[in-house]
């Protein structure tokens, strides 16, 4: 049934994973995972809780070290690079549980991600007005729908607003690949279409990988779906094929295939 367990690598790929494996003691969280993402590709990753999806993201961004395998981001061998260096290749992510600077304002947060990504964070001099990173911060706030909240403290934002801010951070600097980790989790039914729209509006120069339990959002915004089970890349299908098959349902319900 498996289709993708032969390593394929193409230097034009935005992201290429080969034999990516992570063990925690004797437990294998991600096992021999192969996947290539083409530039501009929209991919969703489905799988039950504990399938290893977030671990996979952590391996791609370097939040966790690989046990084995190989990761190329925009053609750059990144398996051993620390997180902050992988970011320079154009990879961004959002976190499943918003990981934000509660003591800073929205403006400061977006400004910091802008200077961070452009490698201009080292200055200890106060920020001048109308600096280009300030301008980018305001632009990002607009994109994320937080312009009116620029000077609000992040710790005081609502859950939905925090998720928007996560997306704003992910858009800073010229992103090439964005990993979205359950962006819809905890959003109200009214907020979900806004998220879908935002995902669809991303320019085709950006590749997107999405972990999402909301099947409507996942299938509507993706061109290709990867199914993950017990740490393995089980199969790749188009959203249509997924809708018409029992595989995903079986995995979520827990029936053995």
């Amino acid at each position, binding site marked *: 049934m498996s289709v993708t367990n032969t390593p394929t690598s193409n230097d034009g790929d935005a992201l290429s994973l080969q034999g990516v494996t992570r063990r925690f003691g004797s437990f294998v969280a991600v096992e021999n995972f192969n996947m290539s993402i083409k530039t501009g590709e929209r991919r969703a990753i489905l799988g039950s809780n504990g399938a290893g999806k977030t671990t996979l993201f952590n391996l791609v961004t370097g*939040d966790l070290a690989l046990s084995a395998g190989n990761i190329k981001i925009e053609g750059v061998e990144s398996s051993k690079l620390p997180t902050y260096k992988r970011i320079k290749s154009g990879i961004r992510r959002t*976190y499943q549980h918003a990981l934000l600077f509660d003591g800073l304002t929205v403006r*400061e947060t977006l400004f910091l991600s802008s200077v961070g990504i452009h490698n201009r964070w*080292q200055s200890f001099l106060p920020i001048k007005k109308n600096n280009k990173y300030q301008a980018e911060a305001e632009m990002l706030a607009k994109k994320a729908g937080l312009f009116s909240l620029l000077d609000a403290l992040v710790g005081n934002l609502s859950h939905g607003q925090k998720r928007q801010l996560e997306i704003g951070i992910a858009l800073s*600097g010229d992103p090439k690949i964005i990993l979205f980790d359950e962006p819809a989790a905890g959003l109200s039914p009214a907020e979900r279409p806004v998220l879908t729209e935002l995902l669809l509006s991303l320019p085709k120069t950006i590749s997107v990988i999405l972990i999402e339990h909301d099947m409507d959002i996942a299938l509507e915004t993706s061109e290709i779906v990867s199914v993950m089970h017990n740490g393995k890349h089980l199969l790749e299908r188009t959203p249509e094929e997924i809708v018409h098959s029992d595989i995903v349902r079986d995995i979520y319900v827990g029936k053995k295939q």
Partner: protein
Amino acid sequence: MNRFIILLLIICSVLPVFAADFWLTQILSRSIILGVMALSLTFLTAYLGVVSFAQVTLAGIAGYTIAYFSANTAGIGAELPWVFAVLLALFFSTIAGALVGLIARQSVGIYSIMITLAISMAFFYFTRQNYSVFNGWTGFSGISAPSVMGLDLGAPVVFYYVCLFTGALATLFVVKFSSSPLGLSIQGVRDAARRVRAIGIPTSPVIVSAYAFSGLIAGMAGILNVWHQERVSSFSVGLGPTIDVLIISVIGGMRHPLGAFIGAITYVMIDTFAIDLISRDRFNTVIGLVLLLIVIAAPEGILGILKSVKERIKKIVLN
């Protein structure tokens, strides 16, 4: 808050008109010096989120540098023009701060407390045992503040203004630095270190520079302290002063730079006056009880108490 600080500065700058020399030197100047020392700790706690016990060590390194490069009675060192001595002192305290940061960079919470405490005690023992640079446990004495163009910086009124200026400068440094890209990165590490890395910023240099900056501020206090005391020795970097600075920071409140100065004046007042009511010898019991009370009842310190009083008054006025 800014308006309040300016008002405070104006009041402080006219104080010498009313205050006697004893007040200027023993209460006000001393409070500002301790305040700047505590500010270096408050900065680390408020912006990086760690508690460091090494701030007195960093101040002491600046103090020893001044002593070594000034006229002293220990007969050790080389006399340099005071400007160079001051610049060297700040340089060494900043570098020492960076070193402390390098050692403690992977530690937060109680771990950073234990590690910085151990570092400061290592320095304490080192100064007691080294005679070629630190002159053992006796240290240096007979150091006086320099004269600048005929003006003796050590004269009570002049020295008070030097302290006031330094205190204001240190506070300005902290406030401005905290809103710089590096300052924001430091606060980012406090809130979510992983996220800082995920926006392209390595955390180790950020933490090290926070400690280095705190070393600069502590160094400013250390220089004033050696001019004020006219001596520096192993006792200046011992456990006593180390805990005093922590007490000052906690009493004042660690959420805002101003807390350090409020804590310092409170501490000095208790040290000077409240003690007459009990017995001079039981000062530590009094200050220990004050610390206990503050930590239990008002964890945000006097600053926090003032804030809640202000809010309560506001409520009453509005109703």
